[in-house]
């Protein structure tokens, strides 16, 4: 006989979420850190353990559910958003987390991700972006840079990449964030914010693939570069960065530029102030274009739009409204209909 492990007296901890299976990513893979962050986040969300469902597609990253001691569904390549939608609509009480990769989510699965996001069910999407196909051994992905040499692009790729955040914004996302496998604290914070958001939360996670694309994010998140190349977004605060926090982002019309504080009379009040709640997506769109090496790369919540109904609650409301208007369905009456006749 098993008993519930919820509530204060019986608090969950990280170990509760560690599945018995051996974790089989390559030693040093960034996926370990993300798994760790999730296993630390879940016990703190106040959700009973049995209410978590982790859904994934196919890829190294998508092995994730096997390592979580929750309900889990490792589906097929690119289709996790559809299964996640089905789970959430069928049972809105479940806390649904979806794990996908840059290939799974943005190559084969782009359309489902678009439609998940615009329908806005309360699903938390974690996109592990390592800018490579890990599981199939190193072909370029939709987030790989132009010119990238990989197994399938021996003389460099010619496809202009997808920007995951811009894609999410273009998909009418109500919550868009970015974090990195190198920053445990920031990951946990971001995951908590995503959980708190009612609606689809989209999180891009910079993830390192040691084997096929090692150090792809190093110039941005590496120990040496981080302070100069990363920009941490804080609600209501100006966009300041730099080891000495003396640089910032200003706009010129719709063109962002990097400025140094107290040089040429620039002060904090000239800088953009972070506001994740603008209803027009122009501001987060502008932010999404800040990229290494021209700009520091922003981390944190780019956009968080309150008030749009979640898909599952809208579906539930229609069911409830129909019941209250028409009464609980009467099967015999349905079958009989209004045009029956009697044969004696």
């Amino acid at each position: 006989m098993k008993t519930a492990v919820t509530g204060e007296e019986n608090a969950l901890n990280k170990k509760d979420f560690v599945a018995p299976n051996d974790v089989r990513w390559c030693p040093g893979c960034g996926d370990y850190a993300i798994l760790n962050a999730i296993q630390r986040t879940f016990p703190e969300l106040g959700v009973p353990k049995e209410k978590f469902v982790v859904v994934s597609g196919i890829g190294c990253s998508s092995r994730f559910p096997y390592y979580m001691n929750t309900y889990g569904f490792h589906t097929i390549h690119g289709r996790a958003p559809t299964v996640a939608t089905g789970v959430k609509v069928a049972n809105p009480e479940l806390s649904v987390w979806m794990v996908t990769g840059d290939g799974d989510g943005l190559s084969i699965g782009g359309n489902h991700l678009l439609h998940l996001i615009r329908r806005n069910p309360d699903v938390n999407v974690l996109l592990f972006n390592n800018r490579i196909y890990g599981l199939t051994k190193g072909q370029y992905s939709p987030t790989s840079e132009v010119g990238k040499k990989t197994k399938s692009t021996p003389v460099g790729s010619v496809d202009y990449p997808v920007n995951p955040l811009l894609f999410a914004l273009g998909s009418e996302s109500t919550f868009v964030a970015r974090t990195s496998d190198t920053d445990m604290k920031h990951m946990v914070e971001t995951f908590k914010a995503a959980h708190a958001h009612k609606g689809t939360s989209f999180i891009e996670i910079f993830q390192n693939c040691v084997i096929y694309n090692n150090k792809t994010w190093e110039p941005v998140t590496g120990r040496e570069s981080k302070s100069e190349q990363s920009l941490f977004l804080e609600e209501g605060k100006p966009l300041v960065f730099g080891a000495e926090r003396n640089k910032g982002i200003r706009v010129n019309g719709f063109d962002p530029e990097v400025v140094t504080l107290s040089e040429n009379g620039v002060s904090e009040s000239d800088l953009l102030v972070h506001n994740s709640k603008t209803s027009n997506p122009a501001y987060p769109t502008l932010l999404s274009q800040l990229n290494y090496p021209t700009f520091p790369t922003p981390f944190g919540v780019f956009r968080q739009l309150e008030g749009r109904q979640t898909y599952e609650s809208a579906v539930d409301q229609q069911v409830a409204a129909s019941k209250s208007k028409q009464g609980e369905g009467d099967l015999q009456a349905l079958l009989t209909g209004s045009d029956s006749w009697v044969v004696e």
Partner: protein
Amino acid sequence: MAQAKDSFIEIESAVVRFAGDSGDGMQTVGERFTDSSAFAGNDIATLPDFPAEIRAPAGTLAGVSGFQVQFGSREILTPGDAPDALVAMNPAALKSNLPDLPAGGMLVVNTAAFKKMNLAKADYETNPLEDEDLRKKYHLVEIDFTNMTKEALAESPLKPTDKARCKNFFALGFMYYVYGRPLDTTLKFFQDKWGKRLPDLAEANTLALKAGFNLGDTMESARNRYQIAKAPVDAGVYRKISGNEALVYGLVAASKQAKLELLYAGYPITPASPILEGLSALKHFGVKTIQAEDEIAAMGMALGASFTGKLSVCATSGPGMCLKSEFIGLASITELPLIICNIQRGGPSTGLPTKNEQSDLLQSMFSRNGDSPIPIIAAHSSSDCFDCAIEAARIAITYKTPVILLSDLYIANGAEPWLIPNVSDLPDLEVPFADPNEDYVVYKRDPSTLARDQAIPGQIGLEHRIGGLEKNEEGGVSYDPNNHEEMTRLRGDKVNAIADSLPPSKVFGDVEGGDLLVLGWGGTYGAITSAVRNLRTEGFPVSSLHLRNLNPFPHDLCNILSKFKKVLIPELNMGQLSLLIRSKYLIDVVSYSKVQGQPFKVAELSNKILETIR
């Protein structure tokens, strides 16, 4: 041939076809004629036939829409091979339908439409009504429906264009006179539909219908009237039902009987869209419907819902089935219950999207990579869709498996009278989920059904992971060679075990065997049974068997087949059931294929049967 006026000729059955432009309301009058006949106690079967275009240019051959109904005092199983009476509202309708009218048939035409422009649109160089042969060959009835309607509605406040659109009911009224149909159900229909909102329209249509009826009385050329007695059917409450309606009701009934909420995910496609539309209107039954972004997504959503323990369903047609195949494989290996309805239409590819075919059987069997057997059942008539929905749910839930339910465009759109079942007589479909008080083993199997134990998210202590990689019994990913072979065999054995739960097959005819067995499946039931019945009446030693379960086949099929000297398999495809039967039973069956987007005619089948028994 001439008869005294108003003296009815008693006949057993008749076939009437209404044909006109897509905008002429032919489907509506066909439906009304059908209702009226059903209410009059006849058995009926219908065949709507409309173009792939939404509104092809008015008056063109591409825009012709038709509706055929057979009604009779005996069991009516098909809409009829050929019309006894054809109503042609314009030259295009005449041109495309006349070849089907047998010599001597009644041909009612709307003379007003036979003007130069319309004739040209129908590629007529001269007016066919001026052709003497036409008069000789058919019983031609020429009526200016357009003008007579206008006259009948002289007093109506409707706009002239709206008045003109009432001519279809004028024509219907005339046909009601010819076949002695009662007007009341149609008058009630006008009241129900427009009485409140558009009383002028209701009134105008009422006038037009009556005027048409009365015209019959005054017209010399309407010299024959026919009378069809009530059909001797079982007592009970009946309604008319189409296949898609029956499917919708069957799914809702299955959800009630299984005590599981119904979640339907679908993407519009002809002829499956009405299932999505029908279920969307039944939210008060706790039904949730999702219009997905495509058929892949629909499968994924349904599968997600299935994982949470709902009764999950999707429906599509051939091209959509292609897209579902990868997910069907996942449903098969994760052993989750799911109903996938395929309302077949003409293929391959986009093919003939508004024409009929039953050519997706082998696709249902084999569309997946790897060995991935799943059960398949096929409905044989519109009302049978209700029973098949319940049967599909039973198999899916009991055996934890995706099930393919095959219907087709002809069944889906066609209608027949249905003896409404008593809800209390419906089977109990409830199957328990895994017990949270026991240790959970993901692929622990019920020894008799071989179904795995399903545990649903939200229950304490049953946390587990499933997925598309091969698993061992405990649910762990396993690359073990013997485990894979064992699991592959178990998945197959489980599907085969369904045969243990099937009732004995019912041979129509010589149960002990004989010269010829006609073996069929799906929507050809009516035509095959009619042909065999007719030939048996004539004394031929032919029997038939119609399969509902196509995978697995019923246990007794082997024995039945062995009792007949010959087996004929008529199919609206190039021989798909044939292939399966030949392979399984090594019997040299005769395959009879028709791939014309049209149902079998009873006569065609009869000829083939006679040819086969020689």
